[in-house]
């Protein structure tokens, strides 16, 4: 039996109507709703694919305050998870990526009764924090092979091997698609361009059945939910939260406006004639050599 974990994150909802910006362009966190992050959702889809294709059991984990339960619920809809884990403790507050990875590592090790997970999926980065560090750091602490920027994957259950395609795009260089093979267990961060596709009728049927199952399961999330604090996770308080974080946020400031050497000519478009010189310029440049 294949065991799959998904690590997710509750994030600000950037969709119009839900996101709120301050007048200076910064995010108004108090007014903005939180949802399951879009990259986390893609990771859930990858786990669901494992369920349909390989009969995997899925466990979802997140570190956060009690309200993060709502993200777990959304993740269960997408992945039909058998297990939901909320790692929640006051002492986790203020954690940087290293201290977060410490919690997630112990959490993953305890899923399905312990040391069962073959593949961990996570989104490639969170929309709000955007560091993209937590995944690979958790992988390293777990001792799992880390595969980043994965756009597609297949598993050979007999050989316990994953085949993956990943994208590598470096500044000023050609984009490369790399096909790789690695023995399980692995930690995969899924690229946002990943789409799970079910090709055969039986796969589509299975997917439908699991979706139905998921919608039943979320009626009674409590049955699947485990809330684990630092003690239950057997964490060393010195390695989590603020005490376990090498980094601190020292200062937050507005970025000063960029220096400029342009002086804009302001054009009023209510009179079409005012646009004539603009059009001329547009044509000149776009058609010029």
């Amino acid at each position: 039996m294949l065991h799959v974990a998904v690590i997710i994150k509750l994030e600000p909802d950037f969709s119009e109507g839900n996101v709120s910006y301050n007048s200076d362009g910064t995010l108004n966190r108090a007014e903005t709703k939180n949802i399951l992050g879009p990259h986390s959702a893609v990771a859930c889809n990858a786990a669901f694919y494992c369920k349909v294709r390989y009969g995997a059991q899925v466990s979802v984990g997140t570190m956060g305050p009690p309200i993060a339960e709502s993200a777990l619920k959304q993740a269960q809809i997408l992945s039909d998870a058998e297990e939901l884990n909320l790692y929640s403790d006051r002492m986790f507050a203020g954690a940087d990526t290293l201290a977060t990875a410490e919690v997630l590592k112990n959490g993953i090790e305890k899923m399905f009764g312990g040391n069962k997970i073959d593949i961990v999926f996570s989104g490639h980065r969170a929309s709000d924090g955007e560091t993209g560090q937590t995944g690979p750091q958790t992988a390293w602490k777990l001792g799992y092979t880390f595969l980043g920027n994965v756009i597609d994957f297949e598993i050979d259950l007999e050989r316990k091997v994953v085949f993956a395609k990943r994208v590598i795009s470096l500044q000023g260089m050609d984009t490369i698609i790399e096909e790789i093979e690695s023995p399980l267990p692995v930690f995969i961060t899924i690229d946002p361009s990943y789409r799970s596709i079910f090709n055969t009728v039986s796969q589509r049927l299975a997917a439908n059945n699991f979706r139905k199952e998921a919608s039943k399961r979320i009626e009674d999330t409590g049955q699947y939910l485990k809330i684990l604090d630092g003690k239950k996770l057997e964490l060393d308080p010195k390695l989590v939260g603020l005490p376990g974080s090498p980094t601190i946020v020292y200062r937050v400031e507005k970025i000063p406006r960029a220096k400029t050497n342009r002086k804009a000519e302001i054009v009023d478009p209510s009179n079409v004639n005012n646009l004539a010189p603009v059009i001329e310029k547009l044509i000149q440049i776009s058609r010029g050599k």
Partner: protein
Amino acid sequence: MKMSKLTSEDAKSKTDEKYRHIYVIIEHFEGRVVPVSLEMLGEARRLMDDFNQKYDSAEKVVALVLGSNVRSLCEELVNYGADSVVYANHDELKYPRNDIDTRIIVQIAKDTQLIKEISPEYLNTFARPRYMFFAADNIGRHLSSTVLAELESGLASDINKLVISDLDIRHEHKTKGKTVRYEKILEMYRPDFSGFLWTTILCLDNKNPEILREYHPQGCSIIPGAFKPIDRDSSRKGTVIEYSPEGYQRSKIKILNRKVVEKTIDYDTSKVIVSFGRGIKDNPEQNIRLIEDFAETLGAAIGITLPLSKKPYQLSQTLDSKYMIPDRVIGTSGSKVAPSLYVAIGLSGAVQHVAGMKESDIVISVNTDENSPIIDESDIFIKGKLEEVVPLLTEQLKKQIQAISIRSN
């Protein structure tokens, strides 16, 4: 060349520190050094020159490069600012693979014997690098994470400004509420996703007696394009050191195939780029269509601002998967462009966006708000709603183009 020249005698007088040097992790591709690596070397050079003067020391910029046939890159790294280059050369290292690269970089970082060749004056005290720089790209982002996880130290990502200073810190945990002086701290500036806020991140030892712990190196990943390389100087001198990894382990990752994909969006060859931002919000679907039509008439490529890549709107699948993607982002988190003409539609001009387009020859913006920062980057500012201005521009353009083609026939 301007460098504080100290004799090793001078330096010896202050050799009690365990952490020394900036280690810069170099990336290369098909025999070429990736530009961000030279940019990091440039910034490391500037920081280290100031550092050595200020602290009366002789610390180094050390470049680390892994690969096969990488010996030939080493001189170039010296020309661009490295004092020492440590390279590991092996067929197994031909392409970046996180597991093996992490282990070797960590070995090099902890290798005190290498210091004999890099800076013999620090041989007896050296434990680890003081600072470590990685690229914030597909390779460096993950590599920095795993290397710093193994070294159990702090890492800040996506940095575009660095300052080294002595700071008085008062922190509940780090200093148990007391004010404590920290020396030679790397202030790592990180722009947030909106491009309007800068967060400064520090990696600090715990000086609180209850949780006493040292966190070095102070690590960061650096945004490509954020810093300038120094001018290439072929007369620069540096030491090149080959490193043979001990207890050599193979990677678990087998590379089966690598192929180049055609770029779907190529801003480098685009003469005209039309970009849009959250100004499309009143009717995103329709407004994108208007902009599409306009761009097509101009023969322009289309870009977006970073917030749009967060998929803030409900759109048809065709428009969503075509435009609301990270590949289209112009700015420090995406592409840096310099077309002959840049048309900025309904975008406010966050610093992180401006950094990606300010080299454009001519900038025309369409915006309702004269106070939005994009006006500072514009040659022409059309004040109006994009819903009205854009179709008008398209219509006028089409008329003119038709007139020209009739004339030329």
